[in-house]
């Protein structure tokens, strides 16, 4: 009898990600009309396997009125189209009911243009492939018929090749021509200039040869060059687009709808960017604030862990300020918006992210350095060849042919493929290890790291407190009170005990605790003074007191536990002679204890989000290349500023989009990322070396006038193949 796995009713049936417990906001503001139907696109979190796909699509299609529901597993977007009444919230509720997280999604302009650019490159590549195959058909006939084929037939074959090549060159080659033209206008040159020059000259010379009935036409080399270069461009664009897709989750966070109380007293649901300063906003229990608020009525306690890193909630009341990103825990509150959504702490962090992105864009990749050496080399070689042949007495036609052949054969198929191919293979290997690389050039930056800065809560620790010790039967009683509260410590008690009954007449007092009646006696669970305990013991972690009005009080101890591989990961980093440091927004005692446990000597506590970014700037000014690992909103600025950054899979969307890679499966990922990126960097340098070696062999052959279209075709394919095969070596474990 085989064991049948018990599939959890909630969340991913394959258990690839835990179920998400959330209530969706109001989605009606995000409905778009298309082809007469109402449509909604939702960003779904937690859908990882084929089972999730059928569960979500099946569940949504079962709702009356839904015409179309399609879940995209690669980017997590669910597209639903329906007719009839407003089903938006029903659909969202269905998905959250199945155990997945949802957020409204509206594609913004830059994501759309990235998608269109990638598609254009793919189509150009396909057209070039078609042309290449058909021209080769004819070229191989010409090469095979050498000596036997009549001149007329040969010219006819050349002519047909030319007719195929011409429109394809214009269509598929426009990427290079447009780019070359735009830099030439400013008097500069980039890689596309010699490429465009080679393509134009090769085509022109081939047309001339065809018209005079000559022997060599380079149409095949021309289109082959185009095809290989487009492969490199396409891979590059695809990798970059995957990176940008996650970056726009920040916008999605701000896309959330907000409950506003109008002057008439009516509650209306609006988009976050429609809120004006001074608007009265209603924040329900369990809802996350998207705008900075000044509380006008209500008392509650709030979870600021994503903003400050502080692990315990604090009580708030009228008059205090609530920052965007904070979760309201107990009671609904109302507050005045302190500014628009764009003024909030959330957007300050968004600003830091942009600054980080710009900084990254200026990083000079190895590929750029190679290109800047290559371009002048190619041009001068071709020019010298032309002049030399003319001086040696050759006819202009011969001299031009040789010069063009030089240009074609030095053309950079290998060079253009060197980096993208290595990045794609490395990205695949990391993905199989549970690490999602968000940009190809990040690999080079990871390879240069010499100092690692880590956040504490959620990165080194599990992020949620765990009950350490408590006597048994008291625990079950305490759980009867704890089940009614959202406070993280109560949740920890419930987790320790499990499901069970609720006490009678339970009420929660924000900031103090919970009280209720069990077996006719009044019990309280909460802070020491609330429960009536005197002389509380000192403790390194958070504590909770429990007791009846009459009788003894018991203290529960909690601890934020270390992640599984934390100790091993950090000692590996120290063995590799990397500096290690902890930056946390949490209290001194908490950070000191964790640092002690892990053997880290440099640490800072109670650091604000700006403080983290400043510390990173200081380290980098010292000349250190810093790797930042963090998960909270308060880490986002630092993640963007670091030389390279990592975020755990459970991190907030913002932090994921600020980082270079997202990892799951524990801190051993840090080791994997660093070693794979070093290996990739090595392979990329090898590839550039191979491209240079190829040129060293090819240029003499070309300059001495021995290159025919056949040789050009072989040379180009061979160089591209070698570079690709070398890149595949990244998949094999290195012997370090």
């Amino acid at each position, binding site marked *: 009898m085989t064991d049948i796995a018990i599939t959890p009713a909630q969340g991913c049936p394959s258990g690839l990600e835990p179920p998400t417990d959330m209530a969706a906001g109001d989605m009606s503001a995000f409905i778009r009309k298309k082809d007469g139907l109402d449509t909604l696109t939702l960003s779904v979190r937690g859908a990882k396997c*084929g089972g999730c796909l059928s569960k979500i699509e099946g569940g949504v299609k079962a709702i009356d009125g839904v015409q179309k529901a399609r*879940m995209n*597993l690669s980017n997590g977007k669910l597209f639903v189209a329906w007719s009839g009444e407003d089903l938006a919230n029903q659909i969202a509720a269905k998905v959250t009911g199945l155990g997945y997280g949802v957020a409204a999604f509206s594609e913004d302009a830059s994501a759309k243009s990235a998608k269109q650019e990638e598609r254009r490159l793919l189509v150009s590549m396909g*057209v070039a492939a078609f042309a290449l195959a058909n021209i080769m058909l004819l070229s191989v006939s010409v090469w095979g018929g050498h000596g036997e084929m009549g001149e007329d037939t040969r010219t006819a074959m050349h002519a047909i090749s030319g007719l195929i090549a011409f429109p394809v060159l214009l269509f598929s080659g426009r990427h290079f021509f447009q780019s070359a033209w735009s830099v030439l206008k400013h008097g500069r040159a980039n890689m596309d200039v010699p490429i465009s020059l080679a393509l134009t000259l090769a085509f022109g010379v081939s047309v001339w040869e065809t018209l005079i009935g000559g022997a060599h036409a380079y149409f095949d080399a021309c289109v082959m060059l185009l095809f290989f270069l487009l492969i490199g461009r396409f891979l590059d664009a695809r990798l970059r687009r995957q990176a940008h897709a996650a970056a726009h989750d920040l916008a999605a966070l701000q896309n959330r709808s907000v409950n506003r109380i109008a002057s008439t007293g009516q509650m209306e649901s609006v988009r976050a960017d429609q809120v004006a300063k001074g608007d009265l906003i209603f924040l329900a229990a369990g809802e996350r604030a998207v705008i900075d608020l000044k509380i006008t009525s209500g008392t509650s306690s709030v979870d600021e862990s994503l903003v400050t890193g502080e692990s315990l909630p604090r009580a708030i009341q009228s008059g205090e300020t609530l920052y965007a990103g904070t979760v309201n825990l107990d009671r609904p509150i109302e507050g005045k918006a302190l500014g628009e959504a764009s003024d909030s702490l959330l957007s300050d962090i968004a600003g830091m992210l942009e600054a980080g992105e710009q900084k990254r864009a200026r990083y000079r990749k190895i590929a750029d350095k190679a290109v800047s050496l290559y371009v002048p080399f190619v041009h001068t070689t071709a020019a010298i060849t032309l002049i030399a042949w003319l001086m040696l007495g050759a006819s202009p036609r011969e001299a031009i042919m040789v010069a063009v052949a030089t240009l074609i054969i030095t053309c950079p198929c290998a060079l253009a493929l060197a980096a993208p191919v290595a990045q794609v293979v490395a990205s695949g290997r990391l993905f199989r290890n549970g690490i999602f690389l968000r940009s190809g050039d990040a690999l080079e930056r990871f390879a240069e790291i010499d100092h690692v800065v880590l956040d504490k809560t959620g990165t080194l620790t599990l992020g949620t407190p765990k009950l350490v010790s408590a006597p048994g039967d008291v625990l079950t009683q305490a759980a009867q009170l704890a089940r009614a509260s959202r406070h993280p410590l109560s949740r920890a008690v419930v987790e320790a005990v499990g499901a069970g009954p609720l006490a009678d007449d339970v009420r929660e007092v924000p900031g103090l605790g919970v009280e209720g009646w069990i077996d006719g006696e009044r019990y309280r669970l909460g802070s020491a003074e609330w429960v009536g305990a005197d002389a509380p013991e000192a403790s390194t972690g958070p504590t909770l007191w429990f007791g009846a009005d009459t009788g003894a009080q018991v203290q529960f101890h909690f601890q934020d536990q270390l992640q599984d591989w934390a100790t091993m990961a950090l000692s590996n980093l120290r063995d590799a002679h990397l500096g290690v440091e902890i930056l946390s927004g949490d209290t001194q005692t908490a950070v000191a204890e964790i640092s002690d446990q892990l053997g880290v000597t440099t640490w800072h506590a109670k650091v604000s989000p700006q403080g983290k970014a400043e510390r990173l700037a200081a380290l980098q000014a010292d000349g250190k290349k810093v790797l930042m690992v963090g998960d909270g909103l308060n880490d986002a600025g630092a993640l963007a500023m670091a030389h390279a950054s990592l975020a755990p899979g459970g991190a907030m969307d913002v932090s994921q989009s600020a980082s270079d890679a997202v990892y799951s499966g524990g801190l051993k990922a840090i080791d994997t990322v660093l070693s794979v990126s070093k290996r990739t960097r090595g392979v990329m340098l090898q590839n550039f070396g191979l491209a240079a070696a190829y040129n060293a062999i090819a240029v003499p052959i070309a300059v001495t006038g021995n290159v025919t279209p056949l040789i050009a075709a072989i040379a180009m394919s061979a160089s591209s193949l070698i570079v690709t095969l070398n890149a595949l070596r990244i998949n094999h474990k290195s012997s370090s």
Partner: protein
Amino acid sequence: MSIIVYLIPVALGLGLLGLIAFLWSVYSDQYEDLDGAAHRILEDDDKPL
């Protein structure tokens, strides 16, 4: 050998058909979700296509 006057256009025509099929697959978003497509073939429903 004058048969190649017919054969070459036929070859090109077939190639063109292939290109059109490729363009159709790109524009009908078939390259958008390669992971999802891989899982969809394993679904057990007996729905008609």
